[in-house]
């Protein structure tokens, strides 16, 4: 009977819809929920059960970074206040960083039944789970120490895994006192201590952007290797005068020598040849104007030039000036993928969640995010980035560090140039990728001593 058959069809469709809904709900609860609940509009995250001792947070090397203070009224204690403040964040009102994102984990009570019974009968404290970060205590402390008194940021990533070994920013703040100093911290617009410059500070990339321009040339100009030009230290592009650093005349340069000596004239011309459309496309493939796979708060880099941009703007954009803005985190991710055969590993900062009983409740494993460069591109960049360190703009870095990198001195509207260094080491089997930025320090020459000391800490371990 057709009516009965149709009834079965109609309800069959309904039941399929319900099955799809159930799958959606399972997917939501198992995968999506974790990433949405840490939101300032979710009051549940801060609904701490006053009987639960929030879990501790440790550096990967074992040092406690956050723990409950042993006082009458409980408060959070951050023993290494300033150095870890930005990635770690703080709990409570306005909470940020790991403390905010992983708040639920820190308040999750393992073996809840037995802990609650003990609490009721012997008034034993109830402990939440602890968190172990990927941060390396020595590197992070050194990074902050090197930045102290300056404004800037350091990001260190392990290229083969995406583990964040250090993420420091300065000026910093004391998370032990955010409650009392909150208003002052907010009002200090000159130093902006709450701004995590590593992931939320937007800067012109300067010559570091030549990595993007060269990658675009490699992708879209088949004969770019044979292109040379003669640099006389400065050149006028449609009324706009571009200068090489100190107006040094580099003479006849090809892509290798121009990259190693950081010749602006060469790259301004190369960028014109690549064209706005291709340069923009490559920049977006390299994560400009795109979300980064980063767990904590960050801002997107922006690449603004397009086909309507004039010659002057294209020339500036090709050498990392103009309207292009980026973060040290983003540049570190580019360095990390160059050091890992082009594969960008998803950066992560929480290594594991450990119960008070010593069991690992959750372990984050390395995940591939996406491929940014081809093997051929990586080989090219490794060679010329080694050249930057051996004979180019970063030649003051000692040979035994065996680094590869790119310097940058970004002109700013006000004050001295920002100094950049982006690179990895050891050049042939990289273990770390770094991005260092110091605001208004005069240029990359002032950043290199920091890189040297930082790499020294790593090689001593």
């Amino acid at each position, binding site marked *: 009977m057709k009516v009965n058959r149709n*009834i*079965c*069809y109609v309800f069959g469709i309904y039941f399929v819809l319900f099955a799809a*809904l159930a799958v959606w709900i399972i997917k939501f*609860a198992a995968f999506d929920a974790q990433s*949405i609940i840490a939101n300032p509009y979710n009051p*549940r995250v801060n609904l701490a059960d006053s009987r639960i001792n929030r879990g501790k947070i440790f550096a990967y090397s074992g040092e406690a970074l956050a723990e409950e203070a042993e006082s009458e009224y409980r408060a959070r204690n951050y023993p290494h206040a300033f150095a870890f403040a930005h990635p770690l964040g703080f709990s409570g009102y306005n909470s940020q960083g790991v403390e905010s994102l992983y708040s*639920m984990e820190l308040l999750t009570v393992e073996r809840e039944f037995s802990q609650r019974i003990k609490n009721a009968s012997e008034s034993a404290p109830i402990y939440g789970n602890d968190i172990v970060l990927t941060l390396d205590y020595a590197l992070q402390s050194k990074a902050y120490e090197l930045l102290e008194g300056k404004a800037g940021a350091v990001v260190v990533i392990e290229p083969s895994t995406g583990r964040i070994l250090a993420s420091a920013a300065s000026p910093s703040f004391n998370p032990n006192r955010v409650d009392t100093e909150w208003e002052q911290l907010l009002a200090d617009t000159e130093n902006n201590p709450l701004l995590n410059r590593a992931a939320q500070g937007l800067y012109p990339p300067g010559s570091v952007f030549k990595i993007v321009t060269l990658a675009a040339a490699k992708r879209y100009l088949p004969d770019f290797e044979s292109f040379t030009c003669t640099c006389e230290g400065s050149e006028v592009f449609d009324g706009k005068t571009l200068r090489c650093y100190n107006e040094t005349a580099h003479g006849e340069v090809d892509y290798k020598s121009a990259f190693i000596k950081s010749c602006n004239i060469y790259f301004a011309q190369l960028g014109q040849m690549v064209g706005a459309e291709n340069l923009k496309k490559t920049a977006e493939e390299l994560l400009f104007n795109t979300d980064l796979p980063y767990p904590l708060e960050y801002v997107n880099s922006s690449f603004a030039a397009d086909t309507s941009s004039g010659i002057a703007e294209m020339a500036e954009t090709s050498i990392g000036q103009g309207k292009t803005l980026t973060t040290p985190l983003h540049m570190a991710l580019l360095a990390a993928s160059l050091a890992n055969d082009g594969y960008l590993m998803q950066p992560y900062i929480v290594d594991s969640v450990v119960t008070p009983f010593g069991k690992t409740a959750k372990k984050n494993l390395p995940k591939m995010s996406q491929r940014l460069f081809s093997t051929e591109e990586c080989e090219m960049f490794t060679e010329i980035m080694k050249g930057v360190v051996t004979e180019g703009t970063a030649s003051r870095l000692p040979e035994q560090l065996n680094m590869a990198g790119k310097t940058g001195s970004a002109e700013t509207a006000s004050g001295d140039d920002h100094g950049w260094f982006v690179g990895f080491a050891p050049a042939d089997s990289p273990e770390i990728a770094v991005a260092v930025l110091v605001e208004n320090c005069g240029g990359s020459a002032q950043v290199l001593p920091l890189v040297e000391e930082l790499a020294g800490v790593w090689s001593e371990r």
Partner: protein
Amino acid sequence: MVELLIIASRYIFLVLISVFLLQSVVILLAQNRKINPHAAKAASVSQRVVIFMVHILAFSILSLGDAHPTVKTAALQVGAAFFIFFILALILIKIFYKNACPLIINCLFLLMDLGIIIITRVVPDLALRQLIFMAAGFMLILFIPVILKVIPKTDSLSLLYLIVGGVLLASPFLFGVTKGGATNWVAFNIASSEISFQPSEAVKFIFVFYLASVFRKERKLSGLIAPIAVSMLFILILVYQRDLGASLIYFLTFIAMLYIAENKPLLVLSAFAAFSAACVIAYKMFAHIRERVEAWLNPFADVADTGYQIAQSLFAAGTWGPLGSGLTRGLPGYIPAVESDFVFSAICEEFGVIFGLALIGVYIVIFIRGMEISLVAESKYHKMLAAGFAAMLCFQTFLIIAGNMRFLPLTGVTLPFISYGGSSIVVSLSMAGVIIWTAGIDTDAAGE
């Protein structure tokens, strides 16, 4: 001690609803004679024990726990009153129905119990009122056989249904009140107390009766013009009153019944095409629809304003993990309109998402049973009635749960049998009542 009870209850509720679902399968198999039919009786009894245990456990937590004092007082009264209602209902249903499907009755009571638990939890002042509406709705279930016997030939009254339905639906234009952005309420002042109800709820009932009476005989294509025009008129009135949820439910019920009765897939497909076009036009025309769609696509973009409600719903369901926060431990009160539109999220928050999935299972059991009743019904009219009401409840349930969990854009309809709302609970129960009645008719007929 209540602490421990709450922690334990997260597991116990899950075990209880699992037992309930398992027994549902036993009853479904027994009713289809796949296993010994006598197994159904024992399974039905154990389902009632499950409901009883859910009730006792939940109301113990609500009345003993550290909830707000108003919750505690309400919990004692409402908990006891619902218990009496449950017992009386089980006795009365035996008197009024010779063969009422025990499975549907048990599912209805489990859902109503969860409804009264969650309403006592989030809006204790309204719980007793809701219980009264539940009792009124159940009285209607009891009297449906009598009413349908007194009114002869309900299948030939299509014109009457049409007039009454049309007048009721249009009544908000005269006595309308705007609630939640939709002008779909009617309010009267009788003896200085305001009585308000939602005509779109009541007309759902009439609408299915109308379609069943029209479709009881095979019709030519020309004979379909009238029902299509009438349905479109009803739906347009609802769209005009901005009652999007109801208009969707009407439309899909109409499509389902049209397809079942007339077996014209092409007609159904063209109706869907026209519907899609209407959706696009509506999206372009109405700002409130665009707002809903945007809140659905990205609730966190404007979490402070348009995305707030759906974001809170997702926080509620997502924050506490698969077992939920435990009853009284969550913050469901942060979801605007939690007691009417977002009860599913509130249940997911405090009972856990796994419990929420099991709850969907309970609805599925009702719909499977509704489908079976419609399949074995003797006349086409009764088939259409049972299938129409089951389909209507089914789609409404799907629509609101999908809206709560951001599977579809939100349409403000109630979750049948659980949500707070007088018109909704009375009409939903009446619909279930017709399904139960249809099942009884044929056993009577077979006995004659």
